């Protein structure tokens, strides 16, 4: 094959990674932006979404797409509800102080991982894709499902953006983000906003996991990499900036996909991680952020 098709293949793989990463990172960014909370358990919510998808697709009879469609709704809802409970029971009582909150979410991460290990087992398990169609290009075939993932993720991101920018819930969220005390003075129940934001962030991670699980399989330790990458993306994109997060996810996802075709994967990763660290050192507000948070 010539260079062109190689690049195209890498770009498609990278785009799928970027789409899922963007959803995960927007969830993390939303929580950080509104609540000023670094949620280390975000990767665990991602993992739970995938595990929930496996259970749902096992339980629902009929063709694969039915079970998948149910999982696409049920997994984020249940994971979101769990996150709301965690917020009400733990984080709220810590008053969202930065360091205790980080430790509590590490504890939460351990608890969720251990529960998944006992309930789901140590093996990676596949979830069937809702459809198996392949789009034949002149050089290679592309699974139609991968393109559907990109499309669905883009639609969901658009929905989130629209919700934040146009709906009343989004307005309340943005008001709470810019000044919590003032929002309270205007009669907003910011405690509820916090709980629902934490739930929504977790639900976004879960839905990203449901989308990727037919491609990559469910495993109880699968949350580590998405967490790390989402952190990188959120930081690079500027803390709490939705547009920056999406742009950074695209850059990192595509870069990762393309670099892995041309370079040995680990050397590429080493260089990338060090570069991210250097960006943070010399531009702590992120590449797109306006000022330090």
């Amino acid at each position: 094959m010539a260079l062109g098709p190689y690049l195209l293949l890498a770009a498609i793989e990278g785009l799928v990674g970027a789409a899922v990463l963007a959803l995960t990172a927007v969830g993390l960014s939303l929580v950080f932006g509104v609540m000023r909370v670094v949620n280390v358990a975000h990767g665990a919510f991602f993992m739970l979404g995938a595990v929930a998808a496996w259970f749902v697709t096992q339980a629902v009879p009929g063709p694969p797409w039915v079970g998948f469609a149910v999982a696409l709704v049920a997994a984020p809802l249940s994971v979101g509800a769990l996150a709301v409970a965690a917020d009400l029971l733990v984080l709220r009582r810590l008053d969202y102080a930065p360091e205790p909150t980080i430790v509590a979410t590490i504890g939460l991460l351990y608890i969720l991982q251990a529960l998944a290990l006992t309930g789901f087992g140590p093996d990676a398990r596949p979830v069937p894709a809702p459809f198996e169609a392949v789009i034949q290009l002149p050089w290679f075939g592309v699974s139609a499902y991968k393109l559907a993932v990109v499309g669905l993720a883009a639609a969901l991101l658009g929905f989130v953006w629209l919700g934040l920018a146009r709906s009343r819930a989004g307005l309340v969220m943005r008001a709470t983000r810019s000044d919590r005390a003032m929002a309270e003075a205007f009669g907003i129940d910011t405690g509820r906003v916090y709980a629902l934001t934490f739930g929504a962030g977790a639900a976004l991670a879960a839905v990203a996991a449901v989308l990727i699980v037919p491609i990559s399989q469910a495993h109880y330790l699968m949350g580590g990499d998405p967490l790390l990458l989402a952190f990188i993306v959120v930081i690079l994109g500027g803390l709490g900036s939705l547009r920056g997060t999406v742009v950074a996810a695209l850059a990192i996802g595509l870069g990762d996909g393309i670099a892995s075709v041309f370079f040995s994967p680990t050397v590429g990763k080493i260089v990338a991680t060090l570069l991210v660290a250097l960006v943070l050192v010399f531009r702590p507000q992120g590449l797109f952020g306006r000022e330090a948070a």
Partner: protein
Amino acid sequence: MSGGRASLALHLGVLALLLALGFVLPPYPHANLARVMVLAVYAMGYNLAFGYTGLLSLGHALYFAAGMYAAGLTVRFGVFPAAPAFMAGVAAGGGLALVVGVLALRTTGAAFMIVTLMVAQAGYLAILTFGRVTGGDEGFVLERAARIVGPLDLSQEGPRYAAALALFAGGLLASLALVRSRAGRVLVAMRENPERSRMLGYDPFRWRLLALGLSGAFAGAAGAGYALLFGYVGASFAAIDHSILPLLWVLLGGAGTVLGPFVGTLVMFWLVDAASGITTAPQLVVGAALVALVLFARRGLMGSLRARLVPWLP
């Protein structure tokens, strides 16, 4: 001050108790306690940066691993015998922490956490990449012959316990001396109010760098000690989990207390050990303990003790 003398007596008493335990404990807890003492040095180093100076680093596994590999590799390839190899480990941990610190200390807060995390992750990946030298994921085992210091054969239980205790005593007394010195008070001032300290003429960057370098040297000493005492060097010690562990130990024991890191390491080790007897997922107990800790005992065990009963605890 009576507190000064009492605290010195308390810490010497703890060391004497540990020495006595070395003679009476049955083999299994004996071996575990030796391990806890070495890991507690790592936690004490972390405490210097986090507990006293307020630097929340998420990349200390890098310095632990630097010490571990510096000692392990020099011994493995016959560059040094065990004793200088240990010193090489201390230098590697401290030196690397200084290099990382020069860059990372330009940031604060969340950015500092992520920068240290990223650099440590790059180090972890580097260990995996250069697997031909480092043994990659599987690591390598140090032969018994390579682990002899003078008359001490560190692969035997008695000498191993003695060496672990010596390392622990060195770390404990050094941190006690440091936090009671003028320099220690400056570090606490950096944690409490960096702006005011700067106004008083202390350069925050330099003092933080000093704390980070010392902290890295402690971590390097623990890593080198671990390699020489337990004869195993592996990449898992450089992974993220191993950066979070000292944070947990210090928080459990009490950040900003001299004995806290040891108490935290000991209790957490015991918790995990007890839990793995009951369930296949001991992480569940660890996680629940952590959440309970931040909810009900924010200062950690020794910190709560200091707040309620013994105000002079350093």
